[in-house]
């Protein structure tokens, strides 16, 4: 347990980056990566909820009885998700419309419960914040990369701005659901090759 705070933070960025290494949270990773703004929005929403719930669960880890810990974690996570949903509806309505059902679905995202159970409930506040930030940022970056590949190839745009000349024929397969699986598979493959050594 001699890991430093910095190590807790950086493990989420590479060694345990959620979608590629832990292979968790795939539902939003597949569904919300049609365009870069969706991917970033999803990533940031998850990061916010992850950090907040990690802090609270870590603070309350001595209060929460073992038998009902999952119920308590879910209540904490769900509360923050609804806060995100309301705030998004108030300040980023178009993004809220696009993300639709996937915002409330953050509640059942395995990353959140996973970090609460595996980390925050066993560690003090500072490492938990680092863990939450690291994991959230790793998730955001992963989603952004995946979304960038899909949006550029499948739509010929990046953040809704055309990147190729008008002669570019979008490879529409990439923005469909099967395209998402193929992309994710390729990313996993690249990550495994890089991590092999």
């Amino acid at each position, binding site marked *: 347990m001699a890991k430093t705070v910095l190590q807790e933070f950086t493990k989420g960025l590479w060694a345990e980056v959620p979608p590629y290494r832990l292979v968790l949270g795939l539902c939003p990773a597949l569904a919300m990566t049609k365009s870069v703004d969706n991917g970033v929005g999803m990533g940031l929403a998850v990061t916010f909820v992850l950090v907040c719930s990690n802090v609270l669960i870590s603070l309350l880890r001595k209060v929460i009885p073992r038998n009902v810990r999952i119920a308590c974690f879910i209540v904490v996570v769900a509360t923050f998700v609804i806060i995100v949903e309301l705030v998004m509806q108030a300040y980023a*309505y178009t993004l809220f419309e696009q993300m639709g059902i996937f915002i409330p679905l953050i509640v059942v995202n395995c990353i959140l419960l996973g970090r609460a159970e595996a980390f925050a409930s066993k560690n003090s506040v500072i490492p938990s914040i680092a863990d939450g930030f690291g994991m959230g940022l790793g998730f955001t970056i992963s989603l952004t990369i995946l979304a960038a590949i899909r949006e550029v190839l499948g739509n010929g745009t990046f953040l809704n701005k055309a990147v190729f000349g008008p002669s570019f024929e979008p490879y529409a397969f990439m923005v469909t659901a099967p395209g998402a699986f193929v992309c994710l598979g390729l990313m996993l493959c690249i990550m495994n090759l890089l991590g092999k050594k």
Partner: protein
Amino acid sequence: MREMLKLFLVVTLFGAISGGLLAGVRAGTKERIEYQQIKFVKGPAVLEILKGCSNDPLATRFKIQDGKEERSFFVGVFDGKPNTVAFESSGKGYGGDIGVVVAVNIDNDQIVGVGVTTHRETPGLGSRAKTDPRFAAQFKGQPVMEPFKVKSDGGKIDALSGATVTSRGVVGGVVASGEIYKRLKFNIAEKMKSIKS
């Protein structure tokens, strides 16, 4: 027994605190969310049916308490006079409620325009109620308090082919608007007087 009571207490406490917090956030974002919905959901339809007015109908609006409900009214200024008011009601469609906005000229109680805001009708069939201007155009110039019906029910409105239930829904929405207008006519006229052109 004591142990059970503690579990019960902790979970109840978590739920209660979360509920209280969310009620606070909801109250704090309510105004803003309402504004966003007006801008992105009702807005386009209201602007479409009040086309040609010289003001911004989304900014010129007032509310009237109608029984338990509070209704929003958007004012259109034509020929330098604020004489048109648009408001939303709903009718029962094929896939759920259809949101219908109706604009009425308060001088002669005639319909200026009808538009569909939110719906869950079949794409390509019922969805034409929103996209096909010819359907909504049938209401133009008709007296608002008339009990409209589609032709197959003995009325004079041509239903969209393949979407009779949707057409009935929209017609129902317009009829409901007529009733609202009848009920609130006096209040509307009062409020309109205070609006500067």
